[in-house]
């Protein structure tokens, strides 16, 4: 067995009101891919931030190569040989790959040598990347490669990866895993943060499982099944998702017909020839890597972007391409955007005001332009009770809710208006498993009651488990749709990568 590289002992860190890490210990060996597993809010990020010097622990010690160290800043961490790839990249869109890497370095380097080093690393580890491309032209997977190369340039002994696969296609994930295995074979230790169990089964040897800020177990992955890991992570067995029977396709609720839309945003995606149907009782899934037009599609359907001709969107057989959001809501539409804070809700406003945001027309919460305050409070309480939102009172600010609670609130606000058509983007992104289950179940209930639902998501497992039909969006174009029973995850991956249909693929 390899020697221990880093051991964290009894790390404790509290925030006002919460113990984020309670005496957490962890030992990492050289050449080992070690999983840090836990739900959102279990304390994974806190632990990693202490290791990387972003946060100081209240108590506990870090031992690096047998010596106790104090890591006071990320630059200290880097000088020890700890590198980290964050979930959210810090890259300048308008600069090239090379410029981004050059800017991020701690020490002065010769530009020519650096270019050579970049190509050497990208060749050696199978991370193809053109240093002269501008970042905004790159896919998310390619952007991640920049971050990885940036880390590898420092010759780290430990690489920390925070949920690296949440934005990748299955094929890209496979490539990333190859790279990580190669790095581990060369003796690098990798701390791999995730809540995706099958990935951990595939990739990791050892797993430390966190729940509510404590280490609940530390296991050899080969001895575990995905189910046993899930049970340890959540403290309870997952109830199986409802079995959904594909509905009869009788009543067409939403029709998107040859939709084209340009974008004002320099880095936005132009939608081209989008066709989409959703029937009553049906859940239609749209897979895709982030930034391929999901946001633009949602805005075009919701009415935030007005379309060139009214026939491009039909709700309940009414052409409404030129209608604004509230006229479409009147026709029975509800939309939930991906960005919770600042798009789906106003962070600095109360829950009551946020309940009002999309409901004032449809629920008639106005009299002569005046807000019927009592009715709005009632509606807020109805959402909160039905969706079990944890909050202080209806005056609590949206920004004070945790991600999962706010998402439940937003989903609840739209569901409580009994929409005939619901379009929801990334419904469970960054949400803890409990809230995710509530949200998925409510989507299925809504469809069961006869509404049409379109789910746009990066989470393929989620789509495969709740949808009846599935397709993918890539570079502003929508692929054909297939019943989930007739398509494999790998095939959806091909659609996500830009295949328009699976014909001629032998399937």
């Amino acid at each position, binding site marked *: 067995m390899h020697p221990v590289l880093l051991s964290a002992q009894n790390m404790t860190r509290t925030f006002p009101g919460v113990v984020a890490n309670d005496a957490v210990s962890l030992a990492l060996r050289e050449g080992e891919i070690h999983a840090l597993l836990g739900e959102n809010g279990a304390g994974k990020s806190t632990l990693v931030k202490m290791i990387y010097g972003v946060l100081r622990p209240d108590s506990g010690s870090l031992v690096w190569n047998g010596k106790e160290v104090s890591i006071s800043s990320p*630059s200290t961490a880097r000088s020890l040989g700890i590198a980290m790839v964050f979930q959210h990249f810090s890259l300048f869109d308008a600069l090239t790959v090379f410029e981004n890497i050059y800017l991020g370095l*701690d020490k002065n380097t010769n530009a020519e040598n650096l270019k050579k080093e970049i190509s050497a690393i990208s060749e050696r580890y199978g991370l193809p990347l053109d240093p002269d491309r501008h970042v905004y032209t790159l896919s998310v997977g390619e952007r991640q490669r920049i971050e990885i190369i940036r880390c590898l340039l420092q010759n780290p002994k430990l690489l920390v990866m925070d949920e690296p696969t949440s934005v990748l296609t299955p094929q890209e994930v496979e490539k990333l895993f190859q790279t990580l295995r190669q790095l581990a074979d060369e003796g690098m230790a990798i701390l791999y943060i995730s809540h995706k169990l099958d990935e951990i089964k595939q990739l990791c040897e050892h797993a430390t499982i966190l729940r509510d800020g404590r280490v609940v177990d530390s296991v050899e992955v080969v001895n575990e099944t995905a189910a046993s890991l899930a049970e340890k992570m959540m403290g309870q067995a997952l109830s199986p998702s409802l079995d959904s029977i594909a509905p009869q396709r009788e009543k067409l609720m939403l029709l998107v017909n040859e939709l084209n839309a340009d974008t004002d945003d320099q880095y936005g995606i132009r939608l081209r020839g989008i066709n989409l149907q959703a029937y009553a009782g049906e859940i239609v899934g749209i897979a895709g890597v982030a930034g391929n037009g999901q946001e633009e599609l949602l805005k075009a359907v919701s*009415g935030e972007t007005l379309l060139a001709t009214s026939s491009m969107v039909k709700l309940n057989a009414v052409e409404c391409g030129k209608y604004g959001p509230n006229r479409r809501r009147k026709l029975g539409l509800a939309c939930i955007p991906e960005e919770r*804070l600042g798009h789906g809700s106003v962070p600095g406003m109360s829950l009551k005001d946020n309940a009002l945001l999309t409901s*004032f027309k449809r629920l008639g919460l106005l009299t002569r332009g005046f807000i019927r*305050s009592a009715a709005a409070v009632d509606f807020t309480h109805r959402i909160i009770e039905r969706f079990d939102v944890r909050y202080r009172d209806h005056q609590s600010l949206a920004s004070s809710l945790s991600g999962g609670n706010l998402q439940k609130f937003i989903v609840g606000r739209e569901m409580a208006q009994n929409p005939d058509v619901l379009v929801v983007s990334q419904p469970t992104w960054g949400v803890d498993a409990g809230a995710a289950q509530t949200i998925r179940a409510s989507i299925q209930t809504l469809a069961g009651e006869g509404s049409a639902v379109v789910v746009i998501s990066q989470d393929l497992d989620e789509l495969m488990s709740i949808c009846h039909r599935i397709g993918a969006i890539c570079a502003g174009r929508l692929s054909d749709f297939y019943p989930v029973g007739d398509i494999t995850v790998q095939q959806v991956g091909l659609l996500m990568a830009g295949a328009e249909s699976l014909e001629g693929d032998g399937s």
Partner: protein
Amino acid sequence: MVFGSPLVAFILTLVAGVVLFQIMGVNPFDALYAFFVEPLTSLYGWGELGVKATPLVLIAVALSIGFRAGVWNIGAEGQLTLGAICGGGVALLFYDVEGFWVLPLMIAAGIGGGMLWAAIPALLRTRFNANEILTSLMLTYVATLLLSMLVHGPWRDPDGFNFPESRIFSESATLPLILGGTRLHLGWIFALLAVAAGWLLMSRTIIGFQVKVVGEAPAAGRYAGFRVRRVIWFTLLLGGGAAGLAGLIEVSGPIGQLLPSISPGYGFTAIIVAFVGRLHPVGVLFAGLLLALSYLGGESAQISLNLPLAVTGVFQGLLLFFLLACDVLIHYEVRWRSNTLTSTRSG
């Protein structure tokens, strides 16, 4: 914290004032007395406070609504001037006519003039995405020069010995006084009504809700179906109308005629009033009174202590400066660190 910060800023302003007066060789406590207390030792003084606060409160209530929406109209001074020109123009047109309808007509013209002047930045912003901070500010100078041109030229009083002044407005073109022994006029009632209306608009109506949502999170505003352009038009016209009304009130109230200069910077001071009042109508009322006092105090300090008139501006500036500093320091922490990155030279 939100309401603490103006208080802290005021105290810091006083402290800075003490230091300032000390440097100027004036007993600071005499100076502060002259500045903040002496003006309020008579009923007349209280009336004057209302007279000065009227334009400040009127404009600041409207501006604060715009600021909540993220629309930065800083050209209220120009809109005020145009309101005075249009309203005053009506008064001059009917200078020999008596009638109850003259004053309402002037008010309408004053509001219309201010709105017209604010419509230009609104149009430029919504059509060409031109920054309203620049356009509204620059139009202020145009408006001031326009007024100057009129009173030096066509509108000059024919019996006025060539002074650059218009005729004195007639009785029916003058705002009635409402408190005996003072100059307090009907405009003060308008200001109080504006506070009430502003509060109602912002806290109870969907229009105020729209303004707040668009200001806080424009994307959420579009999601809710609010049109950002409409909010820009609404808030600019509202600010322009209020400033125009304030300008009309000035010329048909305390001044009583058109002069080359009709405002000691009320339109700019109203920006300070809006922020000190935390962009809330009721806060604006108190802030308006405080800043009105700074005008009176400046005059009184000038008379009793021979201090320059610039003291008023310095005090107003200090107050805004400390307020903004307090707001920043409450939310952020200053960290001193050496720059670890040195410039790189490839070679």
